[in-house]
């Protein structure tokens, strides 16, 4: 570069050296490279920003759902009102209400009493019943028990209902707020970890609603999906990759499998409705049918991933096996399949994660439903986690907003775990050739 140029001969134009051309374009090429890198970086930063905005907005809205406001009541367990031989028939709701009335003797009108009763959740009477069943010796005494507060009180305590606005602009009037403040002064209000959210089924009362029912439904559905799609998917991939002749038919099958992977999932739901429900007469809203439909949806993903895993096993392994006299089946089951299995499992887990987050096909087969009882088997009516999120997002009660976000967090946690497991399996068992 710094070399002085040799003097050009008279008349003839200087010969252009390659180095000069390179040098001339060098600055531009560096610029271009920097620009290219910057674009890539911006793309990553943008997607990370979107992701963090999503996480922050969900997290900030949802973290309060993991806590539940409780109210302490002094309930008199009147031995005359509770039949010791049949605890279930006693009027527990009445006892809770009497306790409330005792705390606020100044409330007398019927209208105000109704408002007062609404401070505690309708679930309070079930909690009281549980307590009495476990502590029979307390009958006749006055006990102090923490019961869940109503969702409006919960929202007030958590600050989602503002106290500093005029009363016609919020759901609780000044009198109700003063009751809550009175209870707060007496230290009769606390927030504690919301176990109901993890152990309960769906409910129309936000303070009693939980995700356990939906989680069980998701579990049964995924078991069916896994049990069907993994063996079928792997068998299809092995046949196509190792045994099938290459001809027009296998080409058509391949195109169709790739096509099927891109079909919108609602189409599988329609298929499920027509075939499993209407033709085979399987029950609506059952995890069994949901699993069958999701199997159809995840099959192409698993087949494609499994074929890729089989392709990555070097031909020398196959040739060596065949060379020492193994049959084709022995070659596949003893050598190729074990080597390809980590890749197949990764594909399967990703397919399962996809199935876990799916709602559209389940709409058609009746799994978008209000189900309170925890499903106990493959044919019990049930719903799944993403459907539960959808149903809560559509509920008018303000408190369901935080439940929705909290349920999204739980679903995301499952998805992250599954994807992390896929990466772990790949890292641990993957072999490079």
């Amino acid at each position, binding site marked *: 570069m710094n070399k002085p140029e040799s003097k050009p001969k008279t008349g003839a134009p200087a010969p252009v050296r390659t180095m000069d051309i390179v040098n001339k374009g060098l600055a531009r090429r560096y610029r271009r490279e920097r620009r290219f890198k910057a674009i890539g970086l911006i793309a990553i930063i943008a997607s990370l920003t979107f992701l963090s905005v999503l996480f922050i907005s969900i997290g900030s809205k949802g973290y309060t759902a993991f806590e539940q406001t409780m109210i302490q009541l002094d309930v008199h367990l009147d031995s005359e009102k509770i039949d010791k031989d049949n605890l279930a028939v006693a009027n527990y709701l009445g006892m809770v209400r009497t306790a409330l009335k005792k705390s606020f003797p100044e409330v007398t009108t019927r209208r105000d009493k*109704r408002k007062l009763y*609404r401070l505690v959740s*309708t679930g309070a009477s*079930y909690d009281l019943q549980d307590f009495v069943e476990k502590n029979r010796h307390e009958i006749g005494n006055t006990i102090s028990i923490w019961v869940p507060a109503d969702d409006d009180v919960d929202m007030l305590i958590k600050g989602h*209902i*503002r106290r500093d*606005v005029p009363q*016609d*602009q*919020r*759901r609780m009037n000044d009198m109700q707020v003063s009751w809550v403040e009175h209870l707060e002064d007496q230290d009769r209000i606390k927030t504690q970890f919301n176990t109901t959210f993890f152990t309960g089924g769906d*409910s*129309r*009362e936000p303070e009693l609603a939980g995700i356990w029912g939906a989680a069980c439904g998701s579990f049964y559905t995924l*078991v*069916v999906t*896994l*049990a*069907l799609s*993994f*063996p079928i998917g792997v068998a299809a991939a092995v046949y196509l990759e190792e045994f099938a002749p290459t001809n027009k038919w296998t080409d058509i099958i391949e195109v169709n499998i790739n096509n099927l992977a891109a079909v919108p999932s609602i189409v599988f739901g329609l298929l499920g409705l027509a075939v499993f429900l209407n033709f085979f*007469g*399987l*029950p*609506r*809203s*059952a995890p*069994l049918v949901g699993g069958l439909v999701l199997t159809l949806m995840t099959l192409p993903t698993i087949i494609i991933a499994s074929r890729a895993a089989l392709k990555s096993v070097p031909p020398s392994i196959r040739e060596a096996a065949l060379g020492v006299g193994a049959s084709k089946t022995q070659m596949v*089951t003893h050598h190729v*399949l*074990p080597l390809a299995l980590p890749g197949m499992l990764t594909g399967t887990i990703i397919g399962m994660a996809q199935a876990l987050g799916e709602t559209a096909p389940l709409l058609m087969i*009746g799994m*978008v*439903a*209000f*189900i*309170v*009882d925890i499903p106990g*088997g*493959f*044919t019990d*009516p049930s719903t799944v986690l993403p459907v539960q999120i959808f*149903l809560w*997002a*559509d*509920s*008018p*009660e*303000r408190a369901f*907003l935080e439940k929705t976000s909290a349920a999204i967090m739980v679903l995301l946690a499952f998805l992250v775990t599954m994807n992390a497991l896929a990466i772990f399996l790949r890292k641990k068992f993957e072999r490079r050739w």
Partner: protein
Amino acid sequence: MKKAIVFVTALAAVVTLGLSNVCAGSRDYVSIVGSSTVYPFATVVAEQLGKTTSYKTPKIESTGSGGGHKLFGAGVGVQHPDITNSSRRIKKSELEKDIKNGVTEVVEVKVGYDGIVVANSKKASNLKLTRKDLFLALAKDVPVAGQEGKTQPNPNKTWKDVNPSLPAVKIEVLGPPPTSGTRDAFVELAMEGGAKKIGWIKALKKKDKSAYKALCHTVREDGAYIEAGENDNLIVQKLEANPDALGIFGFSFLDQNTDKIQGSFIDGVAPTFDAIADGSYPVSRALYFYVKKAHVDTIPGMKAYLAEFTSEKAFGAEGYLTDKGLIPMPKAERDKYRMVVKNLTPLKLSDL
């Protein structure tokens, strides 16, 4: 590998076991389908039943009124639903189809009323609308002023164009899509109600019913009416972000969000609980559910569910459903439907 095979076989066995259970063919819970508007109320009753009795909690699917009637009328038997919720009355054609499919005895139960509100953000001023304003603002074709019988594509851009007493704010209404029962009811009660105020359109109803319907029921498609999906919570959030926009949804969402949004006056009446209950608020509709009589004795919990829903503590004037936003019926009507449920009086084609 062998372990994997054993595992897969075990799973397959579990699935087959599940399948064989299905074929037993009985159901010990009530299956309910239908309107998403009745869903929030029916679910509360179902939950109450599940918690206070030994029956299983009924299963409730939100399929929309039309979808519900379709599933309900498919036949008699455990694979078909027992009850369908509806945010409108059953159509004659639907009942005819039910009877054709063997569902000969259908019991109609009215549960209460629901108001449809037009609301905007609290940051903006409260609007005083009439049904005629809503028709002129949202119909696809509107009458040409002064020329009877002539229509033109809706030229109104701001509310002031519709009615000089309204502010000069762009017409922007977020509402449900055509598949929604709320949309059906809004179009029928608010828009058709408003169109009827114009003399020649009212006369048109007798002359040419289909032209009348097309004029009253077609919503404009030039962007002034924005289909915001079935999720009413989403509409509430969008209204908060855009104070100029109006939203259309059920009363219960206004009731839950009084700190963020306000309901517009319609024909001089504000959408309050009392105004809807006494019928003075014009845009309100009745909610129903329909019961398959043939299932009442075969499915456990049916009678208990019907009794719970029609009890005074549920759909009564101060029942728990009113806490959820249901507008109760007058006492006489409640008593009437309680008797209908008690005697299971089926609906006749001539009633419709």
